[in-house]
């Protein structure tokens, strides 16, 4: 069943930049859609457009979520949807957490925005969520502030916050880019588990082909605001149809396989 359908999405900023330009995407419930592309290809803008969080921009096209057209919704209904049915985690977990509040408060806050719950109850749920994302000693750590956490733990907090409402869709915008490989592996493992346990669909935005290969079912390759290639992950990786996709795959130095003397580059020299 299709959870999210994006058709001919275009985002134009007031400055005249068309960050997204005719994008089509499809994501089924419980599936992982990897969205890859170079910097500036419009990945983040797309995710924000889905949540209706873009300001100063003209959004056109269709964004259909669970049968509802999001572009037609008013702010109120969108707000109800946010967090509750569509959750989001971002690239830089430190700057995404408010330094003035404890992590449990920030998780509980998300819960209380959509459920009638007392402070105490919400706090308990926050602790449970922290435990679930693998924070050791969750009772004690709940009172801590974001700066007292390492990068990986902060991203776990973000994930806990996103998942406390058991959303249908999790949009993860570069969730591991700021992290070291060993920590990245932990977070990817966590996402994998969550998807299996809760059946949450994930829109995974990244520029790392490896991350997509390890987690996604479907993949969309973005270039200059549109999806130049879409399909099941195996097809796209093993039989890329577009030269752009092939270039993207080839220009990344790998730790396995043959070692080329010179790396192939994407397009002409800049």
């Amino acid at each position, binding site marked *: 069943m299709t959870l999210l359908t994006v058709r001919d999405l275009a985002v134009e900023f007031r400055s005249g930049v068309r960050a997204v330009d005719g994008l089509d995407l499809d994501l089924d419930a419980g599936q992982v859609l990897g969205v890859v592309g170079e910097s500036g290809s419009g990945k983040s803008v797309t995710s924000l457009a889905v949540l209706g969080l873009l300001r100063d921009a003209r959004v056109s096209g269709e964004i259909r979520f669970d049968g509802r057209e999001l572009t037609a919704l008013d702010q109120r209904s969108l707000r109800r949807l946010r967090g509750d049915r569509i959750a989001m985690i971002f690239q830089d977990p430190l700057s995404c957490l408010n330094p003035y509040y404890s992590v449990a408060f920030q998780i509980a806050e998300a819960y209380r925005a959509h459920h009638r719950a007392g402070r105490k109850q919400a706090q308990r749920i926050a602790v449970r969520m922290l435990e679930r994302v693998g924070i050791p000693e969750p009772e004690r750590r709940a009172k801590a502030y974001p700066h007292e956490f390492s990068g990986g733990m902060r991203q776990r907090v973000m994930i806990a916050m996103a998942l406390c409402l058991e959303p249908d869709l999790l949009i993860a915008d570069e969730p591991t880019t700021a992290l070291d490989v060993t920590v990245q592996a932990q977070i990817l493992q966590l996402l994998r588990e969550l998807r299996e346990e809760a059946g949450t669909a994930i829109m995974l935005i990244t520029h790392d082909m490896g991350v997509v290969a390890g987690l996604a079912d479907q993949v969309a390759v973005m270039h200059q605001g549109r999806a130049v290639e879409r399909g099941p992950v195996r097809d796209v990786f093993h039989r890329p149809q577009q030269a752009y996709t092939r270039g993207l*795959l080839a220009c990344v130095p790998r730790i396995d396989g043959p070692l080329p003397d010179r790396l192939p580059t994407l397009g002409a020299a800049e």
Partner: protein
Amino acid sequence: MSLLEVRNLVKRFPVRHGLTRRLAGHVTAVDGVCLVVRPGETLGLVGESGCGKSTVAKLITRLERPTSGSIQFAGRDLAELDAAALRPVRRDLQMVFQDPFSSLNPRHTVRQILAGPYRYQGLEPDQPAEELLGRVGLRPEHADRHPHEFSGGQAQRIGIARALALRPKLVVCDEPVSALDVSVQAQILNLLKDLQDEYGLSYLFIAHDLGAVRQISSRIAVMYLGSIVETADRDTLFAHPAHPYTHALLSAVPLPDPDLEASRGRIVLHGDLPSPLDPPSGCGFRTRCPKADELCAAERPQLRTIAPGQQVACHYPERTP
């Protein structure tokens, strides 16, 4: 015969905290590092964020003064020299930085930037800016522009041109491609390789991206919590990592191949890099190591040779098959 030989390099920083700016202790950012770079080779230095890679680079280029240890370069101990004595040495020892924009003075034109090396060394420029630009694949008319008029890749080329102006023997590259987009990374890696071939340069190439390190290095050193845990030839390291950390690191790198990813066995380490403010006793890696035991807590393993061209600092290295 080595160009650069670093022995037991240590750097401690005082750390002050909070409102009171009280001395909270010392961070041992670099804790007894030993490295050798031979003429014409590239030594790759990898490790996680905060493990001390940049500090090593700054110590070698003497942007920081070491707490202890020696840095033998071209027959002299750089650790001992003062600013005036260092100046002539710097002609042979240059550096390329991570952020291509912040490493170029935004107020200077490219021409001024490229004249800097000669000016600061008190030399007459022997290569005009246009020539230097040509070497790194930029056009002569770029000379009169300011850095902000370039893309990240182009700016990094300018940084490389500047480092090469004095025809150095060793170039320390601190994450020169980390800030760049994937497609541009490849171009810079190719350029560095071409220049090495052309001028017989040696590189100390610092990165956290194992793929990039593999692409450019002939030998690789793996760093963890301020120390080198393993050094090996490139192929040996990727084929037979001996230190559990190297092993975990390699297994954590996602491969851009869905089938391989699905089938591969993963070692997922627990926890994060310990704080260098309060390092664990004994082996620095023991808090995350699946093999750790009492010995690891009690005694710090020394770097020892376990195979030709492979040294490791571990009580229980992986066996070479």
